[in-house]
């Protein structure tokens, strides 16, 4: 079939990306591991695993359980700490000419600000993703993203520490009663874009040991099982905040799935769990997406963003 070329570029805040598919935080480590399977610069950006201020061991094993069309993980933010990360991982990615979105996570509002301050001076980064689905040690371990006030304060702190340049993408949890409300709060506090959705809280019980299967008891549900939840979340938030770009994610495993999220309102799409089954998934999905857009007569990806919200013509 003859199809027109499609302009696949996209923007998140003031960051421009030549391609619309991204890795998902925590599903690409820091990029090196995937470089054997595709050229990292051929996708929108590598979103790195959420990094904290200090090095961290994470949660005990077992850390994963496969579930129907999905999986639970409880990694617990194992990582080298921001200093080692900035010293080794970021320079390597930039050397590959990959675009980089750094994901940060903290246990206190102050930790997020500290991380932001350290990022401020690093050049070459495209954006910072603020993963606020972390337990707030100062408030009985309640996840920041489940508390409108705490969410807002995290983003406010990051905005102040990081200055006006680097776009802030606030990554939200779907485990809330009123997602558009949380979204509005973080946008008011200075987020330029939103990442939707983080994993859904779940649990598996091992029927042999008759105890919770994961070392950390609960885990985050990801993969195709949660895609309908992601589509709904993106649709709801895009309806409430049509000007705010969304980095969509949740169960995307094919170009068809990526298109679904884009029609719902995502400007870019992260591929997470699908990379575990197929390490070249991001690039394969990007190619499929291009074909699907072309078949539907789109000449630029941007025209498809949020298309499902338009009134159907009669």
């Amino acid at each position, binding site marked *: 079939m003859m199809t027109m070329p499609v302009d696949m570029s996209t923007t998140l805040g003031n960051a421009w990306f030549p391609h619309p598919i991204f890795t998902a935080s*925590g*599903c*690409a*480590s820091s990029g*090196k*591991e*995937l*470089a*054997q*399977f595709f050229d990292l610069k051929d996708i929108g950006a590598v979103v790195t*695993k959420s990094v904290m201020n*200090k*090095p*961290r*061991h*994470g*949660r*005990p*094993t*077992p*850390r*994963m359980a*496969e579930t*129907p*069309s*999905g*999986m639970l*993980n409880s*990694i617990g933010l*194992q990582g080298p700490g921001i200093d080692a990360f900035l010293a080794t991982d970021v320079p390597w990615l930039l050397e*590959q000419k990959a675009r980089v979105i750094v994901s940060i996570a903290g246990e206190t509002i102050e930790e997020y600000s500290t991380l932001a301050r350290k990022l401020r001076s690093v050049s070459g980064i495209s954006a910072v993703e603020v993963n606020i689905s972390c337990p707030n040690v100062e408030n009985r371990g309640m996840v920041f993203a489940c508390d409108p006030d705490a969410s807002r304060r995290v983003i406010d702190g990051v905005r102040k520490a990081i200055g006006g340049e680097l776009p802030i993408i606030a990554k939200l949890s779907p485990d809330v009663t009123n997602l558009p409300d949380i979204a509005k709060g973080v946008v008011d506090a200075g987020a330029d874009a939103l990442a939707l959705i983080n994993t859904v809280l779940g649990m598996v019980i091992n029927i042999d040991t008759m105890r919770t299967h994961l*070392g950390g008891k609960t885990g985050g549900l990801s*993969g*195709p099982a949660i895609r309908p939840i992601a589509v709904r979340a993106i649709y709801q938030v895009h309806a409430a905040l049509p000007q705010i770009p969304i980095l969509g994610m949740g169960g995307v*495993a094919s170009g068809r799935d990526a298109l679904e999220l884009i029609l719902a309102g995502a400007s870019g799409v992260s591929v997470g*769990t*699908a*990379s*575990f*089954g*197929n*390490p*070249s998934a991001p690039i394969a999905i990007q190619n499929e997406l291009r074909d699907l857009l072309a078949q539907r007569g789109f000449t630029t990806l941007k025209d498809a963003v949020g298309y499902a919200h338009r009134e159907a013509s009669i």
Partner: protein
Amino acid sequence: MATINKSSAQLMATLVSNKRVGAYHQLLLNVGDLVKSCKPGNFVAIKVGGDSSKMILRRAFAISRVSDISQYGGTMELIVAPHGSGSKWLCSQVEGTEIDIIAPLGTAFGIPTQPINALLIGGGYGSAPLFGLADVLKSRGCKVDMLLGASIGSKIYAPMEGKRSVNSLKIYTEDGSMGETGRVTEPLLDIIAQRNIDVVYSCGPMGMLRAITELVADSDVIHQCAVEEAMACGVGICMTCVLPVKNDDGTTSMLRSCIDGPVMDGSRVRWDLVGKVPEAQ
């Protein structure tokens, strides 16, 4: 460019043979030139369940041996226990099926440059990669003894051809249905002493690997073991497969068993901390 997973590739491999061997299935996959980069200890990650499967993660299997001279071209052999739904699916595939694989993955057994005395210990299907290893060690002039153990006889995997490459083979089953009654760890220290063993290579259940490590702890014997942790990705991007491993400075790191393993130095693994988390760094 890539430094990790650097010789691995994703490809569709034709299943050229699927035979039941005791409690296991011996699968032969046509992988072409890929055999050239496979080393004993490496594993393969296999997509299971077909196109509309609810199983989204690959399954890991040790590469039992590769051959470049078979009638099918380059082939890779796997020994698979039908355990849960993924491995059962794999064992039920018929010859001719195209199987989606990524291989070779992970670290390999270290091969000595000197002709040494090696003891290879396998538990259950853990013996699978040891026969390929034995071939290589033999070709380097090593003396190779082998100890295999399992709960019952049907779970001992010891193919005829394999036996040729070892100097001795001793089998232990817990119920005594094959070989001696007992566990492979029982005669271990005697054998090491009698045969002047320099290196123990092991593959099998984590409990066996731990017990071997503890038994050889006070000796000069080197222990290379192939560990088995639940893996979601097999290529180093998910951090689910970690093990606590001692660093030179005495601290402990949670290392990925898919890229820093499966073959690890047994004395480095903090077996006491498996399933726990080390003190904060």
